[in-house]
C-alpha cells in the first residue's frame, strides 16, 4: 500500500520541441521497446483494418464444418458452431482494445479529478477520499469484478465499469501525492500571490505537471486490462456472444480442448502477443520518460 505513494513525486517538467524525435531515437535504441511497439502496431492495425483481412463473416455460423483444423479456406480452422476462427481472431481484438481505451480513459479522468481534489482540497476531504481509494484497492480483483457483473449482468459496459473503478484509485493516489508535492512549491505560491483562482492553478499549473507520469502509469496498465477483459470473456462474463472476443474464443477452445487445439491457440496467442507488446512498450516508455517511476507496482 505504501509503494504507490512514492510514484511520480519527482515531477519531470521537461519539455522541448524536439521531444518526439528524441523519443523515437531512444525507442529505437531500446530493443524490447521496439519489439513491443511492433507487436502493438500489429494488434492495433489488425483491429482497425481487420475487415480488410478477414476471409469470412466472423459471426456467421456453419460457414464450414464444426471444429475443423486449419485449411486453405479456414486458416485457423473452425469452432464448434462452424464459424471461421481466423476471422473471429482478427476481429476479436477490437473488444479488448475498446475496453482498455474506454475504461482506462475514464479511470484517468476520474482519478485525475479526485486526485487533484484530494491533494489540493481541505484535509478532511483528503482523508475521506483516501479511505475511499484504499477501500476500493482492497477489493479482490477478479472476484470483485465478478461480483459487480453478477449485479449488472455480463456485458461490455459492465467490464468497462469494473475496470475503471478498480484502476482509478491508483491514479488518484499518484495524482494526489504529486499535487501535494507541488502545492507548496514556490511557483504555485507565486501564482496564488498573483491572485490566480484555484481552478486556474489546478488546470494551468498543476495538471500539465501531473499528467505526464500518469499517462505512463496508464500505458503500463493496458496489458493488465487486456488480461482482465480476456479473463472475464474466458469465464463467459464478458462481452455477449456471438461478438468475437479473444477470451471467448479461448473459452470455446477450452471446452473442446480434447477435440482440437486450434481454438485454444487462436484465442490464446493474440492475448499473449497483445499483453507482451503493451508491457514491453510501457516499460520502454517509463524508462525513457520517467525512470524514477517504481518498477514494483
Amino acid at each position, binding site marked *: 500500500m*505504501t509503494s504507490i505513494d512514492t510514484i511520480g513525486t519527482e515531477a519531470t517538467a521537461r519539455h522541448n520541441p524536439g521531444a518526439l524525435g528524441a523519443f523515437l531515437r531512444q525507442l529505437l535504441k531500446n530493443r524490447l521497446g521496439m519489439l513491443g511497439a511492433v507487436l502493438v502496431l500489429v494488434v492495433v492495425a489488425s483491429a482497425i483494418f481487420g475487415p480488410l483481412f478477414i476471409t469470412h463473416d466472423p459471426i456467421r455460423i456453419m460457414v464450414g464444418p464444426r471444429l475443423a483444423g486449419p485449411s486453405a479456406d479456414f486458416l485457423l480452422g473452425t469452432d464448434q458452431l462452424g464459424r471461421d476462427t481466423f476471422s473471429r481472431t482478427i476481429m476479436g481484438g477490437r473488444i479488448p482494445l475498446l475496453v482498455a481505451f474506454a475504461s482506462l480513459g475514464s479511470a484517468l479522468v476520474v482519478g485525475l479529478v479526485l486526485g487533484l481534489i484530494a491533494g489540493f482540497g481541505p484535509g478532511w476531504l483528503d482523508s475521506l477520499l483516501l479511505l475511499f481509494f484504499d477501500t476500493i484497492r482492497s477489493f*479482490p480483483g*477478479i472476484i470483485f469484478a465478478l461480483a459487480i*457483473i*453478477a*449485479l449488472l449482468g455480463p456485458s461490455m459496459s459492465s467490464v468497462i465499469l469494473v475496470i475503471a473503478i478498480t484502476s482509478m484509485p491508483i491514479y488518484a493516489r499518484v495524482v494526489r501525492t504529486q499535487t501535494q508535492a507541488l502545492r507548496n512549491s514556490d511557483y504555485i505560491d507565486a501564482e496564488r500571490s498573483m491572485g490566480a483562482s484555484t481552478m486556474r492553478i489546478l488546470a494551468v499549473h498543476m495538471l500539465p505537471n501531473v499528467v505526464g507520469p500518469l499517462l505512463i502509469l496508464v500505458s503500463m496498465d493496458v496489458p493488465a486490462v487486456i488480461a482482465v477483459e480476456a479473463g472475464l470473456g474466458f469465464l463467459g462474463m464478458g462481452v455477449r456472444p456471438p461478438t468475437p472476443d479473444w477470451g471467448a474464443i479461448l473459452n470455446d*477452445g*477450452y471446452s473442446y480442448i480434447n477435440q482440437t*487445439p486450434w481454438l485454444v491457440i487462436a484465442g490464446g496467442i493474440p492475448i499473449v502477443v497483445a499483453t507482451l507488446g503493451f508491457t514491453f512498450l510501457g516499460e520502454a516508455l517509463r524508462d525513457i520518460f520517467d525512470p524514477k517511476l517504481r518498477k514494483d507496482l
Partner: protein
Amino acid sequence: MLFYLCKRLVLAVTIIVTAVTLLFLMIHAVPGDPAAILLGPRATPEMKAHLHQQMGLDRPLVVQIVTFFRGLLRGDLGYDVFSQRPVADIVFAQLPYTIELILVSIFWAAAIAVPLGCYSAMRRNSLLDESVGVVAVATIAIPSFVMAVYALLIFAVALRWLPAIGPGEGFVDGLVHLVLPSFAMGIGWVGYISRLVRASMLETLGENHIRMARSFGISEWRIVYRYALPLAILPTITVLGVGVAWLLSAAVFVEVVFARPGIGALIVQAVNARNYPIVMGVVVVTTFLIVISTTVSDLVNASLDPRAREKL
C-alpha cells in the same frame, strides 16, 4: 511504533467497514430484485415475498447493514437459500483449497526465484541476468488463465503426462494434481520475486558490513547466503503481502480451468446462478484476507523502516 500500530489497525478496521458498506450500497443501487432473479421468470409473487423475507430484503437498508455487521462479528455471513446452509460454512469449506493452491504456488516460485535473484545480483548484467529480466517481465505479463489453458493443452491433453482436472484423492495424487495449477499460478511469481530479490540484494551488497565481510575474503556465495540474504529477503516478504489480491484473482482462473474446488470456483458458480449471498460472502472474506495481509506487510515494513511510519 506503537502509535503507528494503533493507527494502522484503526485504518484496517475502517477500510473493512467501509468496504462492506460500499458492497451493500452497490447491491441496492442496482435496479432489479435479487429475489426475482434468483427464482427465475416463473416465480409467483408469494414465492418472491417469502424469499424476500428469508433474505431480509424486506427490511430498511440501515437495518440490513447493521444486521449484517452484527452477524459478521459472530462469523455469520448470512444464509444461502438454495442449499439451505449458512454462507460462512460454504465459503470456509472452499477456502482451504484456494489457500493450499496459493501456498504451493508461492513456495515453488520462491524456491526457484530466490537463488535466481541472488545469482542475478551477483552477476549483474550477465547474459543470465538480462535474460531473466526479460523473461520475468514476459511471464508477469501473460495472464494466468492463458498459462493454465496452455499448460493443460500441452501437458495433460497432448502429452498426457499429468492429470487434467480435479483435486485428486489422497496426498500423493493431490500433489500430482497440483503440479499444473501451481505451475500456471507460480510462473509469473518466479520472475517477480527474482527481480525483487535482485533489487534488494544489490542494495544490501552495497552496504558497509557486507563490504567488510568481503574484504575478509569470505566467499561470495557465503556472503550472499549468510549475510546478505536474510536482510534482502525481508522487503520481498512485505511485497508478497500486497500480492495476495493478485494471487486470489489468479486462483479464480486456475480453479476454473483445472476444475478444482476453491473460492474462485465457488464465486464463478455463484455468479452464474445469481446467488447473491454467496457472492457477497466470498467478496467479504477475500477482502478481509487482503486487508489483513496488506496491514501485516505494512506493519512489517514499518518495523523495518522507520520512514514508512510517517506515511499513512
